[in-house]
């Protein structure tokens, strides 16, 4: 509950700072302000994937079954925020460059690959019979994911040399102190939001599981 309140407060403060306080970008004008949402969302997605892989590693290491649900929920959060990254990135591309999609934008292409990869995670998970076998296979797949992130990023950079040169870079002027502060508030807000959703979903799923166990016990009894 307290996490939820903190998420709401920090996120509202972050959006207010981003819209009202942060200085306007000389190059891109007001459209640059989507940066304060887009980049924190992307970093939160990475945090979700990383947290999911960490829990997966714990599961394989210790065999504790509770890590399965934690890993699954974290990857679920990562996928939701990853999809939001694609959407916000697409909107930004439209306002800055006039196109909805640009293969020159490395992070967006990476998120598209990750989206495909983690969508397959859910296909895999729902195809497997419930139990410790499913937990272990999902965990191994989650570990492949965090290894795929840097390898894919490298691949995308290498591919630019022969697909087409980089036209757009975002290495404009360095961020000013005001901008960086706003960015950090937004990032904290987004992480808190993801944390809230994660804890909520985890609690819900645990309740579900408990309910099913009780029902089975009743039917047997």
């Amino acid at each position: 509950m307290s996490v939820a309140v903190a998420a709401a407060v920090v996120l509202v403060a972050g959006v207010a700072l981003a819209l009202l306080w942060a200085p306007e970008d000389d190059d891109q004008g007001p459209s640059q302000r989507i940066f304060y949402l887009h980049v924190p969302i992307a970093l939160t997605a990475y945090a979700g994937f990383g947290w999911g892989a960490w829990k997966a590693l714990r599961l394989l290491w210790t065999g504790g079954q509770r890590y399965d649900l934690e890993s699954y929920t974290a990857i679920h959060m990562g996928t939701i925020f990853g999809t939001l990254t694609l959407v916000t990135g697409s909107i930004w591309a439209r306002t800055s460059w006039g196109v909805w999609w640009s293969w020159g934008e490395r992070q967006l292409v990476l998120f598209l690959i990750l989206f495909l990869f983690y969508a397959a995670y859910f296909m895999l998970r729902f195809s497997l019979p419930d139990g410790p076998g499913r937990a272990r296979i999902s965990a191994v797949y989650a570990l492949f994911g965090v290894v795929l992130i840097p390898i894919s990023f490298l691949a995308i950079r290498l591919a630019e040399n022969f697909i087409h040169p980089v036209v757009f870079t975002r290495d404009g002027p360095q961020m000013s102190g005001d901008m960086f502060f706003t960015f950090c508030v937004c990032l904290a807000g987004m992480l808190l939001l993801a944390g809230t959703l994660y804890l909520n979903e985890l609690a819900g799923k645990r309740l579900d599981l408990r309910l099913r166990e009780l029902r089975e016990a009743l039917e047997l009894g």
Partner: protein
Amino acid sequence: MTYVRDVAALARKDLLLELRARETLPAMLLFVLATLVAFRFALPADASERASVGLLWVAILFTALLGITRAFIPEREQRVLDGLVLAPVDRSAIWLGKVLATLAFLGAAELVALPAFGLFFEGVTWNTVAAVVLADVGISAVGAILAAMAAAGRARELLFPILFLPLSLPILVGGVGAAVGDDPARYLAFLALYDGVFAILAWASFEYVVTE
């Protein structure tokens, strides 16, 4: 030393099975030829020669997909995997045996595919041959563990391509880059890096996939 013998025995089992049943390899050979012919008609007449290199790599990936999809399905259906897991062998040996057998099938398919590509489209450079060899290692390493994962589920054949394609995109980049990029050595090194990283990960984590 016993590890090597276990791996060899497991790989030999797959190759012998294939020699007797002749299921996978003829399908792969026909498939790769048919794909190349299909690509001939998919490319407009004024398409660049570079475009056809990309198609070669798509053909190789799809042929691998066809060959590896069923790699662990007989094991699951005939309950061989239960026996293998119970046998006193290291579980990673099961993976390595499957990787070696897959490598043999892929290599045989490419012995047909590369000359056919040279005949239908353009000559194959040594860079491409080197990239194909490196890519085969990565495809087999990742393919064998993903096939074991997919075979454990209900969707099986349906699931494997979805798991495999996102993971094989870096291989596509390395392979095409080695043929058309300015600096082929960088792309070959990238393929070697991919092979190393994913082979170690798959080798270390395979036992968790097959343990019941």
